[in-house]
């Protein structure tokens, strides 16, 4: 069997086409060098199936496999899905820590400690007003000072309690917005459902939907800051996505319900942090502040011998404080009788309200400090994971420039090979057999 004279032309053509396609991929990479979530692509080149010559290809009559050039076997997306998991885990930790840090920073500003104006200082001034009354039990202005110090203290407790309450309300509102019908989770769910469908059809049509996969991965990256994202493969490129314990999307069906069920647990991220803030952290602070108010209420009322502070919570402590004119300094009949005032003033050494409040300040401080530290750790870990992923998937312009040269030269060389064959054919067709003409 003889071999076609034009085989070489075809081989060169394949070379030209493959180099050109590789160049196209390179320019696509360059164009997307700054696209967020873009994965660099590569045209995988492979030798074309060889032409099988059964016999007579060599002098001893044996057959051969003759190379026929190159083909693009696939457009590869260069990505490591394990690194995606790392990035998403760190993004979740970052969302958790930064949400917590932000909320707690606001809470600790509301405490305003250590200062000369916080509740601690006001408790001190309240007891000082009582010791001034013990020094001047006859004085109406001392009683006035006690009443006004008590009122100021009650107001401060109520204001701090309200600040804690509104921090919890704000966290709840933020949670509702994020999980609501116009929130990012819902919009991610509908985009994911569309992408699942599009990717499914593309794979059915035997195409590589690389850019669609990039878009989907980018949405999953974004989603991971809100909670624990887990992905299960359903085959043919379709996926099911869970956020915490709740399915967001299953193939092309949006599972996410608005609002999410009460059993929804985000498992971390911004939503997890908001859930923890509203259900545990902030109510805990509120309860601790109420406990301080109760201690103050119980101790002062016991020492005063009748009702001084009205309520046993931060919000109600200031209710029912007697008017200055009805405050009594002592049980005796004498104007200088000051045993009650002395007993109340002595609470500054014996009441645990101050140390309870100090412990609460430390608690808020260390929770905030921990969240701030966790935020910088998570930021560093996220940056590291993102670096490792960029290391694999990112577009390096230097590399693409080198590829550009490589494929350009490959294209030129294939073209040169084609010219050589053309010259050979020219000799064969136009010059052979023309001896003597």
């Amino acid at each position, binding site marked *: 069997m003889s071999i076609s004279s034009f085989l070489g032309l075809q081989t060169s053509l394949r070379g030209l086409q493959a180099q050109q396609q590789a160049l196209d991929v390179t320019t696509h990479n360059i164009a997307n060098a700054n696209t967020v979530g873009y994965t660099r692509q590569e045209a995988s080149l492979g030798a074309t199936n060889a032409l099988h010559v059964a016999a007579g290809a060599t002098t001893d009559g044996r057959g051969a496999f003759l190379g026929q050039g190159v083909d693009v076997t696939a457009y590869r997306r260069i990505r490591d899905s394990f690194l995606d998991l790392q990035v998403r885990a760190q993004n979740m930790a970052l969302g958790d820590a930064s949400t917590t840090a932000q909320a707690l920073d606001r809470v*600790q500003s509301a405490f305003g400690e250590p200062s000369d104006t916080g509740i601690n200082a006001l408790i001190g001034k309240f007891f000082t007003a009582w010791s001034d009354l013990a020094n001047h039990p006859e004085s109406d202005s001392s009683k006035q000072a006690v009443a006004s110090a008590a009122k100021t203290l009650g107001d401060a407790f109520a204001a701090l309690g309200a600040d804690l309450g509104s921090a919890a309300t704000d966290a709840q509102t933020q949670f509702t917005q994020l999980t609501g019908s116009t929130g990012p989770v819902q919009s991610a769910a509908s985009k994911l459902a569309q992408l699942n469908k599009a990717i499914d059809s593309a794979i059915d049509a035997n195409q590589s939907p690389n850019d669609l996969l990039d878009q989907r991965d980018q949405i999953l990256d974004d989603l991971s800051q809100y909670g624990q994202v887990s992905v299960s493969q359903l085959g043919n490129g379709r996926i099911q996505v869970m956020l915490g314990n709740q399915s967001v999307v299953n193939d092309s069906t949006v599972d996410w319900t608005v609002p999410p069920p009460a059993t929804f647990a985000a498992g971390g991220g911004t939503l997890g942090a908001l859930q923890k803030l509203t259900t545990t952290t902030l109510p805990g602070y509120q309860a601790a502040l109420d406990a301080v108010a109760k201690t103050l209420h119980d101790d002062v009322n016991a020492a005063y011998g009748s009702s001084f502070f009205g309520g046993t919570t931060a919000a109600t402590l200031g209710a029912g404080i007697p008017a200055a004119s009805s405050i009594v300094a002592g049980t005796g009949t004498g104007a*200088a009788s000051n045993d009650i005032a002395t007993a109340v003033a002595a609470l500054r050494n014996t009441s645990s309200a101050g140390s309870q409040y100090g412990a609460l300040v430390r608690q808020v401080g260390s929770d905030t400090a921990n969240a701030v530290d966790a935020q910088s750790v998570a930021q560093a870990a996220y*940056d590291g994971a993102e670096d490792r992923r960029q290391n694999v998937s990112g577009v390096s312009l230097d*590399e693409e420039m080198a590829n550009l040269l490589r494929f350009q030269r490959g294209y030129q060389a294939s073209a040169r090979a084609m010219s050589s064959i053309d010259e050979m054919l020219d000799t064969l067709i136009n010059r052979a057999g023309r001896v003597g003409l």
Partner: protein
Amino acid sequence: MRITAGMSQRHVLADLRRVQERLADAQSRVSSGKQIEKPSDDPLGAERAVRLRSELETNSAYSTAVDESKSWLDATDSALSSVNDIVQRARELTVQAANGATTPTARQSIKLELDALTDQLKTTLNSAYDGRYIFSGTKTDTPPYDLTSATPDAYQGDANPVVRQIGPGVSVQVNVTGDDVLSGLLPTLRSISAHLASNDGASLQTTDLQALDTGLDTVADARSQVGATTNRVTAAGQRLDDMHDVTTAFLSDTEDADLPQALTDLSAQQNALTAALHGGSTLIQQSLMDFLR
């Protein structure tokens, strides 16, 4: 490792952000002068600062009580000093009257002066300090003696102590009641007056003088009690002042910034920022494209 354009850019930005955060921290430490501006800066330190501030407030409340007690005791002592002078004068007059050579007419004029001294004693104890009658027990709104009443020698106050808290669990009685001082003296003076009127030189010489001496002892006792209490209160005040200094220093150690160190930090962070900016600008500029043609 493949370093991509996005990576170096992100590194530069992340480094700049970190340096700028540290710079802002250093800046705010210098401008506020505080090491602990919010509890998260140092939770334990913040709790300690809260406690120390309470201690300072407590300390200053006790200091106020100490000053108050001292003024009360000083006023008491100065009144008792006058009382002592008056009783001494009464004793001199009694000695003079007891002399057998003194004529009944002279005894009459001595009686007039003695009666005036008796009133003066009560007026002295009726003196008010800061609007309060300090010799009336806890009935500080009532003068201890009503000179215009039918029973001008009757004590109008009560026997209750006036107590001031000058430290945790430390209380002092700052008052002396008019009754303590004058309950023996007034009858003695009245009886001397009567003996002067009845020209009873023998009684004047014996029982009356003895009774006056007892009265003088009572006044002296009261004064020494006041003096001892004053010493105690002064010592307590000194301790409070010392504690105030110690606590203030401790609080400052806890929450105030170490200024030289804060300033050094600040300039170090400024240098770091300059270096990071400079490094970033050279890094971002270069690529292979600059060298291919």
